């Protein structure tokens, strides 16, 4: 698409959606795109976080008719040679935009440590907190005119994405089901009283600043209050509210908190948000693995596939990478309770959209489940891949607040996946 057309396109989309409040942002996005170095293809990420560790065998890496499948069957997809587990019928249609890694290798088999590893690309370290992907994206990519937080976590699990050494201001903004209003953005008071309270703050600020002028400036306290007020009155807050979307589209995403979360994610990206994490919990299938997986797929399949289609229809797919992953996979052996246990060696995840070549499969797992997978991918490699798709220098060296120098990623991008 030519830049001029693209700008036109953004305008049209915004107008069509009746979302006139989006127009300035879309225009800005279109302009920013023209200026950006061409190498960068995507500029935002949606992380579909599968909390608990989904079984690869019942999702992206089925091995039908083998012992390790435990009866799971597979379906064909729009891309020849790629099979998904039963339950992914709708995602199967979008396979040309989706790639799968089947040989993820992590060293963390514990939920908290595994979550940390997959979200940050590093193993937990006692002395530094590494930033999550979304925090890096917000830190490195242009701000634009976004008045709402640019890193958002919807239905966040116990361990939402953090800003780590980049600073707490890069922490994900946490919110529940988009059916509810955005937390803490409404004052409890009538406007006149609110105004009085804010004026009082100035009096207090003046007293505290005496003899501390410069240092009080450095606390950024005034800025965060301004930012909070700007957000409270921002039209862009409407991006969190999915109720104005056509009923048909909402149904397609699924009438579930996760489905609404994915729809809100699309709206937020459209408003200039850099990263949205949407969590689908309940994958910890130590017991009744198959039932748990198929129930979760009923939520995930419509939401994931509609998200891809919706992004494409709004002209956002090229610019938005969607990443669907959990903290680890599940054992090839089914335990006596009909469950599968934690398995960080050779698990699966899916990537789609911006900056990523679709229809690819990386790595292959052993149908007996005895040997390590072919073409193993380390967690750091995944992060390098996503960062380079966003046009971020994944080798960039940063200094933590206490003076350590750390690279954004210690891995290397997977060449097959990154568009050149």
């Amino acid at each position, binding site marked *: 698409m030519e830049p001029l057309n693209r700008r036109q396109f953004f305008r049209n989309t915004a107008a069509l959606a009746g979302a006139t409040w989006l127009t300035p942002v879309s225009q800005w996005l279109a302009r920013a795109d023209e200026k950006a170095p061409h190498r960068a293809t995507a500029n935002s990420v949606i992380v579909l976080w599968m909390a608990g560790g989904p079984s690869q065998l019942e999702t992206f890496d089925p091995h039908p008719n083998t012992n390790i499948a435990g009866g799971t069957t597979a379906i064909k997809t729009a891309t020849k040679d790629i099979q998904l587990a039963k339950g992914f019928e709708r995602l199967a249609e979008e396979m040309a935009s989706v790639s799968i890694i089947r040989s993820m290798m992590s060293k963390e*088999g*514990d939920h*908290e*440590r595994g979550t940390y590893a997959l979200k940050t690309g590093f193993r*937990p370290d*006692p*002395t*530094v*907190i590494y930033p999550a992907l979304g925090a890096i994206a917000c830190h490195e990519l242009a701000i634009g005119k976004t008045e709402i*937080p640019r890193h958002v976590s919807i239905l966040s699990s*116990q361990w939402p994405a*953090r800003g780590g050494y980049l*600073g*707490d*201001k890069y*922490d994900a*903004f*946490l919110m529940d089901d988009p059916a509810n209003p955005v*937390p*803490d*953005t*409404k*004052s*409890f008071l009538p406007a*006149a*009283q609110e105004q*009085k*309270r804010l004026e*009082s*703050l100035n*009096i*207090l*600020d*003046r*007293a*505290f600043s005496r*003899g*501390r*002028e410069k*240092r*009080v400036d*450095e*606390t*950024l*306290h*005034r*800025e*965060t*209050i301004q*930012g*909070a007020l700007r*957000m*409270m009155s921002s039209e862009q807050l409407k991006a969190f509210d999915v109720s104005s979307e056509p009923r048909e589209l909402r149904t397609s995403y699924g009438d579930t908190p996760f489905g609404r979360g994915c729809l809100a994610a699309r709206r937020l990206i459209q408003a200039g948000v850099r990263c949205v994490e949407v969590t689908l919990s309940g994958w910890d299938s130590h017991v009744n693995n198959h039932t748990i997986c198929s129930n979760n797929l009923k939520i995930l399949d419509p939401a994931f596939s509609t998200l891809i289609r919706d992004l494409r229809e709004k002209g956002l797919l090229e610019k938005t990478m969607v990443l669907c992953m959990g903290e680890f996979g599940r054992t090839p052996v089914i335990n006596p309770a009909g469950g599968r246990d*934690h398995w*960080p060696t050779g698990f699966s995840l899916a990537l789609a959209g911006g900056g990523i070549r679709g229809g690819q499969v990386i790595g292959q797992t052993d149908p007996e489940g005895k040997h390590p997978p072919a073409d193993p991918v380390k967690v750091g490699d995944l992060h390098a891949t996503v960062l380079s798709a966003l046009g971020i220098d994944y080798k960039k060296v940063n200094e*933590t*607040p*206490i*003076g*350590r120098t750390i690279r954004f990623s210690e891995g290397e991008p997977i060449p097959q996946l990154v568009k050149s």
Partner: protein
Amino acid sequence: MWLKNLLFLGLLAGGGLTLAANLLPPRHGKALSNYHPEAYKTADFQNTVHNVDGSFRKLWEAEKIQPTTPATNLAIARRLSLGLMGTLPSLEEIRQFESLPTEEQIPWWIDHILQDRRYADYFAERLTRAVVGTEDGPFIFFRRRKFVSWLADEVFQNRPYDQIVRQLIASEGIWTDKPATNFISVTIEPEKQNQPNPVRIAGRVTRAFLGIRLDCAQCHNHPFAEWKQADFEGFAAFFGQTHVSLRGITDGTGDYEVEDMKTQAKRMVAPRVAFSPELLPNEGTLRERLATWITHRKNPYFAKAAVNRVWAILNGQPLVAPIDNLQTDGFIPPALQILADDFAEHNYDLQRLIRIIARLQVYQLDSQCEHDSGETLARTLGIFPLTRLRPEQMAGSILQASSVTTSDLDSYILLRLMRFGQQNEFLKRYGDSGDDEFDNRGGTIPQRLTLMNGKLVEEKIKESPLNANTRIKWLAADDAQAVESAYLACLTRRPTTEELQYFENLLKDPTITRGQALQNLFWALINSTEFSWNH
């Protein structure tokens, strides 16, 4: 139901009565029976304080720095309270504090805190973060709450620090029965046959107890420091015989093998310390021997690392940063060595160390300064630093500021909630600063929203017989006293003339009730920069 109502009425009446006593200055302070101002007057206590003060004076002279003036006693009391209990002094405590002769106020306050269970709980939580981190650890094998409350007991009894550390490193047994062993069991890896990870333990031990980063040598020879990869492997080997069995954490026999990162070949590594091998005893299990070596009077790092940590807890920033790198190529103030020597000579007495630091001139300096407030002044500690309150300090402060009486129970519940993880909505929304990564970043917009519009603040300033604003409304003699009480409860200081005038006027606003006006005042105080920063 009637029981509940009765209880409520009882609370109401009781609350009103205690309050009357609280807001009016009591005749005399509730002096603690075992408060001994003499402890601060002994020659060797004063000597150490004098030596440290002298070392800073020398530094200021050399740098041509004029340190700022002393802070008020109330400001120092606030620092002590935040650092050691994670909360503010209550109005009730402030009244007691002010009823004492000026020169006795601070020593009394220090001792008052050291005998308060809130100190032990909070201090233990901070130490826990330093030694096992903030992770929940492996399910079944790690009991964080047991660990923290055991550590709090040790701190409360003022058990010598070297003995606490010895237990952490060398204890055997089951983590529920011998809570110290959680230090080892937190590293258990389910995917590695549930065995503890020597590398992770060794990394923690060197950073938390020695303030050195031997683990940087884990993968490569350290570019600056003298440590080699072999030093770290040899250190980790001390934990190579530690296993989990039916009897919990035990020590067996066997060799420690490491896998070469490149060739994947296995090779045996013998336990070995990186320096001062003469301090390592020959008797005992490997862990016992290492514990003796680490806590040895002559170990050049142990006492210094502890002093640096206690300093950081009290001041909001370590004396030498980063806190786990005493080998920094930056400037190391001579105070560190003086304090470390005193700490080791006095049987690693944590309370003595706290008392000494709190009595230092640098601890008692003001955080504002009319003259130069340049880099050198801050670097040489010629001015007390501003530090953002940690999330749990924020929560503790809001709870305390909104209650005129000392909220032991509330803060205790808060601590318990913290340990349960994310249950406390405020902490979840406010964010957790994690391990002790001391820095001075600004706050965030969601944090601001949580304070401006969030449930906790709203709950705590609404009109209710349990909330400070309502009690002040009932009992303050006039508007001036109401404003002053609110300032003391939230900011541990009195309003300036300008502030007093401004808020007195606001309380007279005819468009709102006096109760609403007081709510607004509390809202503003809690949302001020001053409230969110230790100063």
